[in-house]
């Protein structure tokens, strides 16, 4: 008997490093290529790439850059894109606070983290002071 798939499996992956401002646009383009591959709708693509842009920018701004893992994942019959942002920056002291609309230590709008969360289907953030921050987001093709 063939097994029914009940776990998220990763089908295809790619790792990019975001070290300078000029890396953001090519990174967004790569995410777009992946999203097109799984036939994600234009609106969902736009939401995903915008969230990716926010997180990539945070990494540059607060952690001096980092790495992103781009994956095509699937859960049963649905396909999605999962992005894992991994940096070795200072970490976030109070994640709950950082996730609030309007909270910013960078004199900005403080929309990046909470906004990115609203734009995707799954959002996970882990951070340790002095070690780094890891944010994982998933957007389903039709989610």
């Amino acid at each position, binding site marked *: *008997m*063939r097994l029914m798939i009940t776990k998220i499996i990763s089908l295809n992956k790619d790792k990019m490093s975001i070290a300078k401002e000029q890396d953001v646009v090519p990174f967004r383009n790569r995410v777009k290529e992946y999203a097109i591959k799984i036939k994600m709708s234009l609106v969902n693509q736009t939401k995903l790439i915008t969230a990716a842009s926010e997180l990539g920018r945070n990494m540059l701004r607060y952690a001096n850059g980092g790495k992103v893992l781009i994956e095509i994942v699937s859960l049963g019959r649905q396909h999605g894109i999962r992005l894992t942002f991994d940096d070795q920056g200072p970490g976030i002291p109070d994640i709950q606070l950082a996730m609030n609309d309007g909270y910013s230590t960078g004199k900005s709008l403080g929309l990046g983290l909470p906004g990115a969360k609203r734009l995707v289907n799954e959002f996970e953030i882990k951070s340790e002071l002095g070690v780094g921050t890891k944010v994982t987001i998933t957007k389903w093709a039709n989610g």
Partner: protein
Amino acid sequence: MATEITKILKKRKSVILERWMKNQLTDETLREDLISNEELRAESEELIDILTKSLNETNLTDPDSSDFDHVIEILGGISLSRAKQGFSPRETGLYVMSLKETLLQILQEEVKDPADLIAATLNLSRLIDNFSIITFETFIKGREEVILRQTDEITEISTPVIRVWDGILALPIIGTLDSARTQVVMESLLTEIVESGSSVAILDISGVPTVDSLVAQHLLKTVSATRLMGAECVISGIRPEIAQTIVHLGIDLSDIVTKASLASALSFAFATLKVEVKKVAR
């Protein structure tokens, strides 16, 4: 040495087809209205052909063997198309079950040693049973696809964007407004705004049963997105009960233009576009 049943099956391929066809045709549940005899025969012949080709003494006891990929593909195709044509699960299952019956009949005639016969029957049953399970799984998958397609169609049908006037769009919303629906409403409304170059959109909610804070939030989002595009969005069809709930729940709609009826929303739109509509004396 045990009887090589796969050889027997290969040898008697044409007999198997004839008998299987007969079994299928005499069955009272045969859906001649949905599939012609010729089609059925062609389908069955292809399946037996591939099955006897793929089968050998080793993979007979290994239903998961990749040798059967082609068989499974064909079976999958058959049950998928049956699901879409409206066959019942029983009718679809019977297709494979009757094959099993036919194959076992042949074995009974050909294998003389009782121990061999039992072993062969067991192995073959297990294999074909596995095929039936796959058939059912794909059948259900086929049905799910039909349901998904219909759901999409319903969502599309239920969000018609109407060009009521040059520069004015109307979108009557019927039923509840959840976040998935809001997404569809926004998308079709904004796309149509671009295509028609309209500056006013009317969202009529007289067909929306209740407006709670979540629905209100969805309405607000739609209005904001419309304004970002450079058009105004008016909400019409606010029934008295809805006005009451909005106030009782403390929802703030003061930023948006609301009108009681589609007619008054339309005259607001005319005023915005500086269009005058009046009766003419004949």
